[in-house]
C-alpha cells in the first residue's frame, strides 16, 4: 500500500503543476474523473530491481489509468459472448442443444467457459483485477482528499495573470483591507480561505487562497467505492442466498422445504436448514386475455389467489400474487413466473380400481394459443401399468383445411384433449428419476394400445380396448410456476447502487474551484489587487462575479456599496455556473 501513495504523490505533483502552469486551461481535465492516474507508466523500466521492486512496479502498472481503461474494455469485451452463446445459468437446455448442433466446436468453447461466461475464471480475473486497480487508486485518493479537505487551500501561484481566469485592478484601500474583504466575500460564498503573508521568494504582497467544490471529488470517490460495495453485495447474495422454482397447480400447496422444489440453486455458503418454514396454497389462477381486436389473445393480466403462512403456527393470510407484485414471506420473496394448463384425469385399471386421479401439468407447445402436451403415468394400474400421452387445445377448433385440430385462443373457451394410450412398464420401479413431462421406453417396455386414441371433452371418459381400463378427462385446471428466493445482498446492493448514482451525478455537477487574491502596495498609496481563478474543467462565470463583487464597492462610491454587494452575492449563490451574461462581459 505504501507504493500506491507514491503513485498518488506523483499525481499530486501533477495536480500542483496544473494549478500553476500557464496553459492550465488546455491541460485541465474537463471531468472530475480521476485525472491523476497517469504518472507512473512512463517511468524507467525496472532493471535488476528484485522481487520487491517488481512488485512495486507491477502495482504501479496495475493502478494506472491506462491499465484500468484496458481492463474496462476487456470486461465489456468479455461480457459479449455471454449474450451470443447460450448460458448454463440462464438456459441450460439451449446449451445442450448447442452441443448437439456443434459437436466439434462446443467442447472447445466449453473449455474456455464460454457457456458460463459470468462464472468463468478468466472473467473473474478481469473484474477482480479491475476492482483491485480501482481500489488501489481510489482508496489512497480518498485519504488524500480527506487530508486536503482539512489542509489549507494551496498557496497563490507567483503569477496570477497566467491563470485561465485572472483580473487586476487598483484601489485606494490598503492591502489589509482588501484581503480582509476578499476573505469575507469568499467565505460568504462558502469557500475555504487561507491568508498567507507575503515575502518569501520574491512574492510581493500577501494573498488570500480560497478553494471550494470538494463535493465533486467526494462524489467521484463515493461512486467508485459504491461500485466496490456493489460487487461485495452481489457476491454476498450469491454466497448466502438461494433460489428455487416450484410448479404449483390450483388446489395444491407448497411448504418451503428442500425436497418440495422442482429446481433448487443454493449459494455456496447457504445452510439448507435456514429455509424459512412458510407454506403457500394456490386457490385459483386467472389469466386474462384480450378477447377481440388486433391484439386478440395477448395476455393482459395474470393473477394467482393464494393463502400463505409465514410459519406453521402463524395465522393464514391471503394474497393476490401477480407479475410485478411478489410476496414477501419469511425473509424470502415469491414470484409468479409462468403458467400453464393442468388437466385433471382419472384412470381406472382393468379391475375397475382407481389407479390415478390428479391434475397433470402440461407444457405449452406454442406460446400463442397454448396448445399443450403432457403425460399421465398410472404405475398402480393392474394387471399392466398404464400411461397416456395427451395434447390439449384450450380453445379447440378445426384448422382451415379441416384436417387438424388447432387452438384458436389461449384461454380455455372450449378445451379438448386427445389421449394416446400405452401399457407395459413405465420404468418407475427401478427408482431412476424420470421427467414428469415425458414417457420413456416407448416401443420397448411401453407398448401403444391399438385403437387407444381418443378425443375427449371435459367430463368424458374413454374405455380402453380389451378392457384395459378407462381414462376420464375430469376438467381443466391451471398451474403456475413460482420462483422463490432469498438474497441477503439485495438491500446492500440497492444502497450501493443509489450511492453510485448520487456520487457520479455529484461528481459531474460540482467542480473544484480555486481563487487567489493578492494585494500589493503600490506607489501613491494605491493598492494593486490581482485575482486569479482556476476551475477544474472549464472556467465558470462565478469568477467574474467574484471579481465584480470585489472591485465593485471599492471602485464606486462607498455609499451604495453594501446593498450592491449583498444583492450580487445572493443572486448567484446556488447556480453560479449557469449565468452566461456576466461571464462574457468582464472577460475579453
Amino acid at each position, binding site marked *: 500500500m505504501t507504493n500506491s501513495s507514491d503513485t498518488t504523490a506523483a499525481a499530486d505533483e501533477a495536480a500542483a503543476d496544473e494549478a500553476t502552469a500557464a496553459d492550465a486551461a488546455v491541460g485541465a*481535465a*474537463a*471531468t472530475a*474523473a*480521476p*485525472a491523476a*492516474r*497517469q504518472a507512473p507508466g512512463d517511468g524507467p523500466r525496472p532493471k535488476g530491481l528484485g522481487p520487491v521492486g517488481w512488485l512495486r512496479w507491477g502495482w504501479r502498472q496495475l493502478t494506472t*489509468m*491506462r491499465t*484500468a*481503461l484496458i481492463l*474496462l*474494455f476487456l*470486461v*465489456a469485451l468479455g*461480457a*459479449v459472448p*455471454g*449474450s*451470443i452463446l447460450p*448460458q448454463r*445459468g*440462464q438456459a441450460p437446455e439451449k446449451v445442450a442443444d448447442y452441443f448437439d448442433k456443434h459437436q466439434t466446436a462446443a467442447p472447445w468453447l466449453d473449455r474456455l467457459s464460454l457457456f458460463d*461466461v*459470468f462464472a468463468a475464471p478468466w472473467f473473474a480475473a478481469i473484474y477482480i483485477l479491475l476492482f483491485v486497480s480501482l481500489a488501489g487508486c481510489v482508496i489512497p485518493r480518498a485519504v488524500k482528499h480527506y487530508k486536503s479537505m482539512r489542509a489549507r487551500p494551496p498557496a497563490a501561484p507567483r503569477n496570477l495573470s497566467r491563470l485561465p481566469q485572472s483580473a487586476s485592478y487598483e484601489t485606494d484601500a490598503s492591502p489589509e483591507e482588501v484581503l480582509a474583504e476578499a476573505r469575507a466575500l469568499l467565505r460568504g460564498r462558502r469557500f475555504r480561505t487561507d491568508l498567507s503573508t507575503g515575502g518569501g521568494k520574491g512574492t510581493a504582497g500577501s494573498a488570500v487562497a480560497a478553494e471550494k467544490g470538494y463535493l465533486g471529488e467526494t462524489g467521484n470517490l463515493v461512486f467508485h467505492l459504491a461500485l466496490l460495495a456493489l460487487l461485495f453485495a*452481489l457476491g454476498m447474495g450469491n454466497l448466502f442466498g438461494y*433460489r428455487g422454482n416450484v410448479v404449483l397447480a390450483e388446489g395444491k400447496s407448497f411448504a418451503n422445504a428442500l425436497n418440495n422444489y422442482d429446481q433448487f440453486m443454493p449459494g455456496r455458503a447457504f445452510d439448507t436448514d435456514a429455509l424459512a418454514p412458510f407454506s403457500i396454497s394456490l386457490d385459483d389462477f386467472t389469466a386474462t386475455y*384480450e378477447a377481440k*381486436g*388486433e*391484439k386478440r389473445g*395477448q*395476455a*393482459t*393480466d*395474470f393473477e394467482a389467489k393464494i393463502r400463505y403462512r409465514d410459519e406453521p403456527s402463524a395465522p393464514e393470510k391471503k394474497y393476490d400474487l*401477480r*407479475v*410485478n*407484485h*411478489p410476496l414477501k414471506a419469511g425473509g424470502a*420473496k415469491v*414470484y409468479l*413466473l409462468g403458467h400453464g394448463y393442468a388437466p385433471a384425469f382419472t384412470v381406472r385399471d382393468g379391475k375397475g380400481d382407481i389407479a390415478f386421479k390428479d391434475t397433470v401439468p402440461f407444457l405449452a407447445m406454442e406460446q400463442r394459443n397454448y396448445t399443450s402436451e403432457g403425460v399421465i403415468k398410472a404405475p398402480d394400474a393392474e394387471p399392466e401399468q398404464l400411461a397416456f400421452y395427451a395434447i390439449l387445445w384450450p380453445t379447440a377448433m378445426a384448422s382451415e383445411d379441416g384436417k387438424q385440430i388447432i387452438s384458436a385462443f389461449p384461454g380455455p373457451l372450449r378445451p379438448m384433449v386427445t389421449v394416446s394410450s400405452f401399457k407395459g412398464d413405465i420404468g418407475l420401479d427401478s427408482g431412476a428419476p424420470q421427467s414428469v413431462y415425458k414417457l420413456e421406453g416407448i416401443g420397448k417396455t411401453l407398448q401403444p394400445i391399438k385403437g387407444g386414441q381418443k378425443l375427449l371433452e371435459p367430463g368424458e371418459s374413454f374405455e380402453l380396448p380389451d378392457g384395459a381400463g378407462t381414462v376420464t378427462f375430469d376438467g381443466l385446471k391451471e398451474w403456475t410456476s413460482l*420462483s422463490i*428466493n432469498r*438474497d441477503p445482498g*439485495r438491500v446492500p*446492493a*440497492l444502497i450501493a*447502487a*443509489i450511492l*453510485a*448514482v448520487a456520487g*457520479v*451525478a455529484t461528481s*459531474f455537477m460540482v467542480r473544484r474551484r480555486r481563487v487567489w487574491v493578492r494585494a500589493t502596495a503600490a506607489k501613491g498609496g494605491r493598492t494593486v489587487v490581482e485575482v486569479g481563478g482556476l476551475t477544474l474543467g*472549464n472556467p465558470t462565470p462565478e469568477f467574474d462575479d467574484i471579481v465584480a463583487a470585489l472591485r465593485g464597492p471599492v471602485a464606486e462610491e462607498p455609499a451604495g456599496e453594501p446593498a450592491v454587494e449583498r444583492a450580487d452575492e445572493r443572486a448567484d449563490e446556488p447556480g453560479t455556473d449557469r449565468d452566461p451574461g456576466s461571464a462574457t462581459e468582464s472577460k475579453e
Partner: protein
Amino acid sequence: MSHADLANLSDKLMLSTVVLYIVALVAYAADLGFGQRRRDAEIAETTKAKVLVGADGAEVADASAASAGTSAGPSAASGDDAGADGRKVEWMRLAILLNVIGWAAHLGFIATRGLSASRWPWANMYEFLAAIAFAAVTAFLVVMWRYRAQFLGAFVMAAAVLALGVANIWLYDKAGPVVPALNSYWIAIHVTAAITATGAFTVAGASTLLYLLKARQEARLATAATAATAATAATAATAATAATATAATATAATGRAAGSGPAPVAATALGGSGFMSRVPAAETLDRLALRVTMFAFPIWTAAIIMGAIWADEAWGRYWGWDPKEIWSFVTWIIYAAYLHARATAGWKGRKAAILSLIAFAALLFNFFGVNYIFSGLHSYA
C-alpha cells in the same frame, strides 16, 4: 375523444412530425451548405480588395495573414456572425421553426398515443423508438439553446427521421394494452430514463462524429497552411526585390496566425472545404460531446439500476445476465472508459472519441440487435 379517435390522431401526428423533420433537415442542410458558400464569396472579396491595395509582395503576405485573422472570428464563435448574412439567417430560422413545430407534433403524438391506450406510451419497439427520437430532438434543442449548437441540427434531424422511418416501416404496431410484465409504474421510471439517456447519447454521438471529421480536417489544413504560408512568403520574397526582411516578418505573422490560434483560422483562410467550415472548432465539438455524455451517463446508470430494481420485482432477480442487461452493461462500461479516457493523457481526443462512438454503437446494438437477434426477457417486439 374515443380511444380510436386518439389512436387515429396520434398516427396523423406521427406523419406530420416526420414531414416537418424532413423539411427542417433540408433547411439545416441548406444553412450548412449555402451559408458557407456566401461567406466564402465574402472572404474572397475582402481578400481581393486587400491584395489590390497592396502593391508590393510584403503586403500580399500581410493581406492573407489579415484575412486569416478576420475569418478566425466568425468560425471560432459560430453564431456571432448570424446577423451578417440575411439569407443564411432565414434558412436557420426556418429550420429551427420547423424543428420546434415538429417537436411539438412529436410530443402530441406521444401524448395521444399514451391516452389512446391508457398507459405509458413506450411499451413496444415502435413507441420506444419514437420516444428515443423525441428525446434526441429534445436534447438537441436544449443543446442548441444553451451552447448554440445549430450545426448539429442536420445530423440530429437525419437521425430522427431515420429512426421514425424505421419505426413506421418495420416496427409499426397499433395502440393496445401491454403484456403483464410491463404493467408496472417502473415503466414510467426505468424506460423514461433509458429513453432520455439514449436521446442525449445520440446528440453526443453526432457531436463526436463531427469532432473526428473536423479534427482530421483541421490537422490536414494545418499542414497545408504551413506549406501555403511558406509559398506565399517565397513569392513575396521574389516579387519584392529588396524585401527579404519584410518577407521574414510576413512569415512570422502568418505563422503565428496559423500556429497559435485554433486551427480553423487556417481552414477558413484557405476557403475551407464545404460545410465543415460552418462547424465550430474540434475542441468545441469535443467539449460539447463530453458535456452531453456527462449529462447522459448518470441517467444511463440510473436507468440500469432502476431496471435492476424492476427486474427484482418482476422476475425475481435483479441481475441475471439477460442479453439486454449484458449490452446495457457493455454500453455503460465503454462510456465509463470514454469518460476516463477523456481525462487521461495519451487517450484524450481521437482515441477517446472513438471509444465514445464504440459505446454508441453498443447502445444501438442494445436496442436493435438484442431485441431482434437474441431471445431474452426484454423481447417485447
